[in-house]
């Protein structure tokens, strides 16, 4: 029974990783941008929500409602003002720009909020759970997170496969110039893709922040989880990212079950094994979506 519990908890944790990684997957899939600031963006979202909640009397739910659209706008602006310019120069310069963004965000957070550890107060939700039997109980928070992850990934998938703009994102990913020749303003299309990616990373960052405390230096450690989920699942495939997140979550909880010290190592070992034996990932994508 303990093992069943381990697997259930691992799957739920994996949902969070998948939610966190899908923005990384999307930016790579559409623009071939590897966003090294991805983890720091998640932490930034958590601090923003923290500020919103301490400055007003709003609860965590409203903080989420406020922070996510802010992040979408921020993403649009970052793409148009920063990444678009660097994409014109070279893929390497884009990598450097996102690295710079990561450093800037970390230091701004340190300057503004100090190095103290914070937590988002979600009231009684943090301890509520559904008890299945003596061994297995599912916390509301991880169930909600998992449900959100599934909803977001299915919605993104539908958007990319059916939506007019989503279709154009796939087209621009195939051949950016041909996309402009059929009438798409590629800068706008890319900026929308980034806005969506930023919105999802904000949501994931907030869900992280609700389950555990955070501080300004946490970004890069988080980034590794997103990378591992994306690589395990297969680059540029959203279903792959979902599977990758779940595999990572399972590997970590199973590792921790064997020995609490193995939590992170379990994930890293699976990641390295996939890189070595199946570098295309579990669900390789010939196409985005």
């Amino acid at each position, binding site marked *: 029974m303990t093992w069943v519990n381990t697997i259930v908890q691992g799957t739920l944790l994996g949902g969070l990783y998948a939610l966190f990684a899908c923005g990384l997957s999307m930016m790579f899939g559409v623009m071939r941008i590897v966003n090294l600031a991805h983890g720091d963006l998640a932490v930034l979202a958590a601090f923003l929500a923290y500020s919103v909640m301490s400055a007003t009397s709003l609860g965590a739910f409203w903080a989420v409602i406020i922070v996510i659209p802010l992040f979408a706008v921020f993403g649009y602006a970052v793409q148009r003002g920063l990444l678009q310019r660097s994409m014109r120069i070279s893929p390497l310069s884009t990598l450097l720009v996102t690295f710079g963004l990561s450093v800037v965000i970390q230091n701004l957070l340190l300057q503004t909020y100090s190095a103290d550890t914070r937590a988002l107060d979600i009231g009684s939700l943090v301890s509520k759970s559904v008890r299945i039997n003596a061994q297995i109980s599912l916390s509301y928070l991880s169930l909600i997170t998992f449900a959100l992850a599934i909803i977001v990934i299915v919605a993104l998938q539908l958007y990319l496969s059916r939506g*007019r703009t989503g*279709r154009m994102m796939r087209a621009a990913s*195939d051949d950016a*110039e*041909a996309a402009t020749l*059929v*009438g798409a*303003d590629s800068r706008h299309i890319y900026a929308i893709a980034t806005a969506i990616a930023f919105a999802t990373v904000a949501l994931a960052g907030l869900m992280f922040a609700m389950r555990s405390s955070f501080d300004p230096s946490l970004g890069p450690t988080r980034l590794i989880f997103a990378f591992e989920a994306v690589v395990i699942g297969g680059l540029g495939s959203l279903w792959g990212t979902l599977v990758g997140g779940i595999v990572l979550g399972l590997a970590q909880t199973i590792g921790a079950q064997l020995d609490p010290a193995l939590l992170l190592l379990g994930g890293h070992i699976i990641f390295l094994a996939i890189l070595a034996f199946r570098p295309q990932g579990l669900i390789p994508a010939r*196409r985005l979506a």
Partner: protein
Amino acid sequence: MSLLDIHQLVVHHGQLAAVIDLDLTVAESDTVAVIGANGAGKTTLMRAIAGAIRPTSGTITFDGIDITSWPAHRRVAAGISLVPEGRRLFASLTVEENLLTGGYRRRPGPWTIPRIIELFPWMAERRKQPAAELSGGEQQAVAIGRALAANPRLLLLDELSLGLAPIIVQRIYAALPEILATGTTVLLVEQDVSQALRVADEVGCLLAGRCVLRGAASELTAAEIEAAYFGIERTPR
């Protein structure tokens, strides 16, 4: 009034001036062919008209409006669609999705997806197939359909015959009369001179970036075209 008016156009392809001091007018509902040898500047000219490259100098006027500095996507909305050299389909999208991307900035007009499929009936049962799996001729048809989906006033066709067997080229060109019947103006670039002469009202010949011959397709003689195409100076005997 002419629909497209190009004046003293200079376009560089890297360091090289690929189009030099070019003047070209295309009247509404006309079919104009630009012929020329490899590297004469034909594709560069088409890309400059579609907005994929910025000209170094000169002006491009479309329907009386100077569009020289417009980005490509704005030109599509204004009614200029290019069928690019090498087709450039979106490989991971299906046939139907490729056609749908063409309608992204659809202007009102006769061309709808069902109408395009009527023009190339084989598409009906293969609409869900990825474009990458099509043969060259089929890809060319989808590229034409994708451009038509925007309902262009000016359709630019760049080297439709490139890499295709003659019989396939004939089949592709067989669709042209129906396209012209909707009143679409066509500017086409073709290496296959006889094909170009067959479909065009007017022909211009490019040689090393300059227009060296211009005339009605029916009036030009084979000798004139040959001389212009290969750049042979006609020396009086």
